[in-house]
């Protein structure tokens, strides 16, 4: 019964995706959208295959672009997770930590990552560390907020169980609060990962010579929509794959919350 349902879901997904690509192809082939503004799906696929080995017109193959972007996006995400998750948890559990960090966090939170670019260029120049910092700034916000919320939502009764057992604050935090908060933490990490890829294009505006964001920019300058869309699709697929990998970690560490 379950397998049947799964099969049906896959079939529906394939039909949905095929219809989308077909409509896209038709719209461009029939001239509803001019060829110089949008490439048909098949041309994008051909460009993708060609770009695996061909560095023209943007100076690098798609694999080189991907690896450059991936290392920047992943580094920014990892730093955001390593700082954001413990910070959010501490703010959720300890009122002093919240009092110290919350005001500054609330002021910094609404600043869009792109607004950081000028000051980051002055501080860190235009190298990889500047790009990682922009991604970090974007990705740290959901990590902090979700970890904070995860800890705040631990029902008081669970904490009281710990107290009545004579557990220390540290043990209550590590044995009760953190396990309960894990699903919210993973939700935050998924959002952080998405935000990291979103911020990537902004980060690669910083005088890049390689990377998917740079490739998209070159596609725009050269008016080559197939290059732009190829870059976009690779970003989308990479984000989905990393999100899937994160889902595997979630399944391992917070399987109790999965329906």
């Amino acid at each position, binding site marked *: 019964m379950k397998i049947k349902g799964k099969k049906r879901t896959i079939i529906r997904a394939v039909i949905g995706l095929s219809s989308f690509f077909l409509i896209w192809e038709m719209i461009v082939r029939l001239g509803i959208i001019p060829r110089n503004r949008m490439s048909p799906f098949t041309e994008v696929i051909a460009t993708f295959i060609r770009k695996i080995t061909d560095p023209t017109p943007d100076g690098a193959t798609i694999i080189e672009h991907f690896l450059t972007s991936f290392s920047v996006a992943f580094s920014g995400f990892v730093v955001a997770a390593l700082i954001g998750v413990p910070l959010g948890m501490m703010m959720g559990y300890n009122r002093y930590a919240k009092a110290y960090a919350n005001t500054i966090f609330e002021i910094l939170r609404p600043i869009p990552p792109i607004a950081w670019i000028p000051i980051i260029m002055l501080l860190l120049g235009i190298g990889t560390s500047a790009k990682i910092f922009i991604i970090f700034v974007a990705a740290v916000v959901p990590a902090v907020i979700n970890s904070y919320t995860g800890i705040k939502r631990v029902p008081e009764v669970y904490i009281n169980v710990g107290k009545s*057992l004579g557990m220390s604050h540290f043990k209550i935090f590590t044995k009760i609060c953190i396990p309960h908060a894990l699903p919210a933490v993973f939700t935050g990490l998924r959002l952080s990962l998405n935000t990291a890829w979103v911020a990537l294009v902004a980060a690669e505006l910083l005088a890049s010579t390689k990377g998917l964001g740079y490739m998209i920019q070159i596609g725009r300058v050269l008016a080559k929509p197939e290059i732009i869309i190829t870059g976009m699709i690779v970003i989308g697929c990479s984000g989905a794959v990393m999100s899937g990998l994160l889902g595997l970690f979630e399944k391992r560490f917070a399987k109790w919350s999965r329906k």
Partner: protein
Amino acid sequence: MSEKAKVSAVGLTKKFDDLLVLDNISFDIAKGEFVCIVGPTGCGKTTFLNILSKIWPATSGELLIDGEKADPKKHNIAFAFQESSAFPWLTVEQNIRFGMEQKNLPKEIINERTEQMLELLELKEARNYFPRQISASMESRVVIGRSFALHPDLLLMDEPYAQLDIEFRYHLEDAVLKLSKMTGSTVIFVTHNIEEAVYLAERCIVLTNKPTTVKTIEKIDLPYPRDICSKEFTDIRDRITDYIKWW
């Protein structure tokens, strides 16, 4: 405090700012005794338990276990709360082990008592399930198992079956009686259900309205299992109802 007392409350008083909630409550409970606490709605029964469990500090007075100030780090105090308190990220078995692991009991004892609780509470089949995968009645049994597995000096129960229907309640009440005798734990069971109190308790402490004091302590000298239709049972139930009723 009497010499034989396992647990003694001595002049327990709790104030929230100027509001006096508990007023100089004192009583003794013998080792292994099953005591129920009843009182009018809103009289502060849960506040009383929270102070006994040391979740909240008392404004004045003390709770003594074996003549020493009760300390959850030193004494085995377990609490079965009104709300569901089985940890959702642990399986049935892990939930039962949890309290014992926090008390650093030897692994062999943890294994032995876990098996015993799973057997007695009919949870063996569900040992690897998470709380969201089992019924409310099973979840209540998990909490009871976690509490009794500690063989606590003092087990506090705050209307733990309030959410369950009547059939499951009687089933669980019998299980709790059996476990309290088996582990020799002293149990304080708070309920607003007088019939439940008379069914379970060896003594029943009746509390007054706020500021709460002990109105009377009723000894219930009926053999177990109790017949809820017997005249003796209904007489005691009616007497306690008379103590409580305000109408």
